[in-house]
């Protein structure tokens, strides 16, 4: 499991350049260009279970969901940031990508600590330090548990119409 560390204001163009928005449609194409202008090694080396640590305002900018789709497709276990931009936060809920907003945890990670994350207990360890994060509100949790907003919506429609 690798930890990727980035700074403040990582925007949607760094996560997925706008020039590909109307040409790269498949998930493999999205993965190929993910974080291209921020960290070209990410698309080559990211793997299932990796965690991203970032500063404040992660995901600011466009209402671009390719970054979330791409991170989810790589199997990123969670993005831990000091704060997230709101459209990105919403997009993550809608895809079931785990985001943890915790400034102290981000600042505790200097690059060498062992990191472990237990989503069920809501505990994040950075070295010896333990950080807890609150559960999602019930309305939001229902979306995450259904496997994302589309699955949630499809299920609801089926119930309603059949």
């Amino acid at each position, binding site marked *: 499991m690798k930890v990727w560390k980035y700074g403040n204001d990582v925007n949607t163009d760094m996560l997925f350049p706008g020039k590909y928005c109307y040409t790269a449609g498949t998930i493999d194409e999205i993965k190929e260009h993910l974080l291209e202008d921020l960290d070209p090694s990410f698309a080559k080396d990211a793997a299932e279970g990796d965690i991203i640590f970032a500063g404040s305002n992660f995901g600011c900018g466009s*209402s671009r969901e390719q970054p979330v789709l791409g991170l989810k497709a790589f199997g990123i276990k969670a993005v831990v940031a000091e704060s997230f931009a709101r459209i990105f936060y919403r997009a993550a809920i*809608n895809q079931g990508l785990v985001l943890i907003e915790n400034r102290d945890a981000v600042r505790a990670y200097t690059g060498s600590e062992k990191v472990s994350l237990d989503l069920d207990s809501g505990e994040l360890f950075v070295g010896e330090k333990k950080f807890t994060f609150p559960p999602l509100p019930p309305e939001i949790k229902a979306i995450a548990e259904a496997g994302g907003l*589309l699955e949630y919506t499809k299920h609801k429609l089926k119930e309603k119409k059949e």
Partner: protein
Amino acid sequence: MSATFAEKVLAKRSQEKKVVPGQIVTVKPDHLLMHDNAAPITAKITAELDKYGVVNPELPIIVLDHVIPAADEKTATNHKKIRDFVKKFDITNFFDIGCGICHQVVVEKGLSLPGQIVLGSDSHTCSYGAVGCFATGIDRTEAAALLLTGETWLKVPESIKVNLKGQLNPPVSAKDLILHIIGDMGADGANYCSVEYHGDVKALSIDDRFVMSNMGVEMGAKTAAFKVDRITANYLRSAGIDRTAYESVWADKKAKYLMEKEYDLSRIEPVVAFPHKVDNVKSIGEAKGISVDQCLIGTCTNGRLSDLEAAAIILKGRQVHPDTRLLVLPASRTIYEQAARKGIIKTFLDSGAVVLPSGCGPCLGAHQGVLAPGEKCISTANRNFKGRMGCKDAEIYLGSPATVAASALTGEISDPREVGQ
């Protein structure tokens, strides 16, 4: 119980007596905006659309603007799929290429009104706060779900009150003011919040208000709104919307705010946002003399008639410097026509500018003015992120239409007060 603008709209629309920040409410938006991304959005729910249809053919607004006319086979196919979808489901509000940039078209056509809720799969949907509409951006998946259900959840935001005092001194413009505010508040200074503009807003035209609301998202705001006044009502009337067609909503005097800020408009000077962050704002004095390879006037931020006018006043009878190039994109066909009638388009052409169709093109690095490595551009757009204009090794500076026009004449970033008329 006093309430903010956001609290009042969300309470009203969720049939709650009152709501508090942090509360989650379910709402049915009046409209859902999509653009060229309508193709990938509808592709997510092909089977469901066939089975259940679109919840309401009047809900979606689709404007083709991001890559228009199509730049290649992929984008052409994308547009074709959208036209097919529009026909198949009898979508009422469809605007094909050339109508304009989505955010301008939505307000021009009277599709975002005071007190309404409009959600859009574009971050600059917050622009409609200019006419007192609660408007905010969402992602593609949520747009897809909305097409099927017509409803979604919203968290009631905290609110920030921004008091504006006095008047701007032209050629200082609303763009300089909002860049100054974003520089002061920071790129996440209003994250998750509803921003309300109070005070001497009557000194700001509707075009000015669009600039201010449009850029709300550049400080993280969920929505950025103005009170509906005579200026708004006159504007809406010119768009064919009578005052009886809407019910405006505004904050109570004693509403509670997370933060209050005050800005003296008479003290605002021309400013420029330096690469690669919108909040990296410096005075024009610090930017003066930086050579620019390209200058861009347009986008959903600054492509309105008064923006084109402010630029044309500076360019009239003069030539774009041979070491730079000037691109102009009127924000809509209506604006393009008005500018043509007033001789503004001729002024641009005479000065050597390239006038492009009403669309987004170069702003997102799609086509029609992408930058080369090492190049610098000054633009009236809302974002200067690295790679935004199609090249990660280029630099983008943001300024007002007057500053960009002045810079086009000299080939370097210039103070519009010095280049003069």
